[in-house]
């Protein structure tokens, strides 16, 4: 088994960008799909209305509640397990996701300020809701990863000087580059020129002529190196999402191995 090398370009609780190598396109896509479809999150699935005198129908409010991301600690719950939440707000006031009260401290609205419904004088919303643990494959509201994608790591080679009378058109490139020609690069966005360094293209405003002025360039993909862009809806952190996604692939591989062995 080869070891994977993982280098982070950006990293925060809900958003990260990292380079993995060596990895095949097939496996990279497998991880992406697992992050989108196979990592379970809690989401409200059944709502019992006690009173709804707002301007919206029960179904519309049910839809809005279903889309509110709920914190889901990995490994603490079984698939299909339920947690009950309740909400009771009287107008004039806006009911927010933060008004949802959970019966389990580990599961609750990930964002507190999502407006559910604006209540006017004498209007009231009182309800009880069951959140269920399920996967994105079943319903998009259970999808913990948002806009998860990957692309090739790219390298930029200097193949000569730009002609004296060439147009100075910008050379737009997006993604992350692995620096190969530090001697021709200038410092941009806090990234000093250094061979082998990972530089996000935002550092030079996505224009290669800012980083390598006056040079003729050639951009190629780096074999077996992919840059992942991962964002979560707040159900869990990016780290947890990636680890859980890889875990689901591992579990299925183990299951397959077992059933093949007889």
């Amino acid at each position, binding site marked *: 088994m080869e070891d994977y090398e993982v280098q982070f370009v950006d990293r925060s609780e809900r958003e990260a960008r990292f380079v993995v190598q060596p990895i095949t396109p097939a496996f990279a896509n497998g991880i992406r799909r697992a992050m989108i479809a196979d990592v379970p999150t809690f989401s409200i699935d059944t709502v019992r209305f006690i009173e709804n005198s707002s*301007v919206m129908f029960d179904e519309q409010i049910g839809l*809005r509640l279903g*889309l*509110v991301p709920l914190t889901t600690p990995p490994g603490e719950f079984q698939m299909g397990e339920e947690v009950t939440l309740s909400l009771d707000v009287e107008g004039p006031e806006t009911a927010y996701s933060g008004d949802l009260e959970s019966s389990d401290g580990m599961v609750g609205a990930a964002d507190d300020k999502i407006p559910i419904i604006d209540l006017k004088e004498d209007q009231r919303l009182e309800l009880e809701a069951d959140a269920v643990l399920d996967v994105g494959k079943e319903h998009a509201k259970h999808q913990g990863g948002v806009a998860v994608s990957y692309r090739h790591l790219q390298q930029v080679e200097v193949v000569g000087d730009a002609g004296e009378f060439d147009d100075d058109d910008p050379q737009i490139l997006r993604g992350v580059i692995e620096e190969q020609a530090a001697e021709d690069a200038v410092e941009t966005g806090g990234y000093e020129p250094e061979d082998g360094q990972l530089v996000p293209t935002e550092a030079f405003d996505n224009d290669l002529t800012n980083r390598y002025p006056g040079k003729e360039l050639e951009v190629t993909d780096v074999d077996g190196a992919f840059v992942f862009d991962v964002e979560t*809806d707040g159900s869990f952190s990016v780290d947890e999402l990636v680890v859980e996604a890889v875990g689901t692939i591992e579990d299925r591989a183990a299951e397959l191995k077992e059933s093949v062995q007889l």
Partner: protein
Amino acid sequence: MMVPVRCFTCGNVVAEQWEEFKHRTREADEPEDPAKVLDELGVERHCCRRMLVSHKDLVDIVAPYQ
């Protein structure tokens, strides 16, 4: 009627940013440039930006006819 909870295209939660966006670009005494406000709120992708830019709250308009 109410601002959609998530972006239709990518599934990012956009409703959280709505009230501040609405206030700073439409209700404030000196309305700011919506593009700048969206940048500051961290609404990056254009699919998510259109969710806020094109939204209109209708609860106040509908409420009297209930």
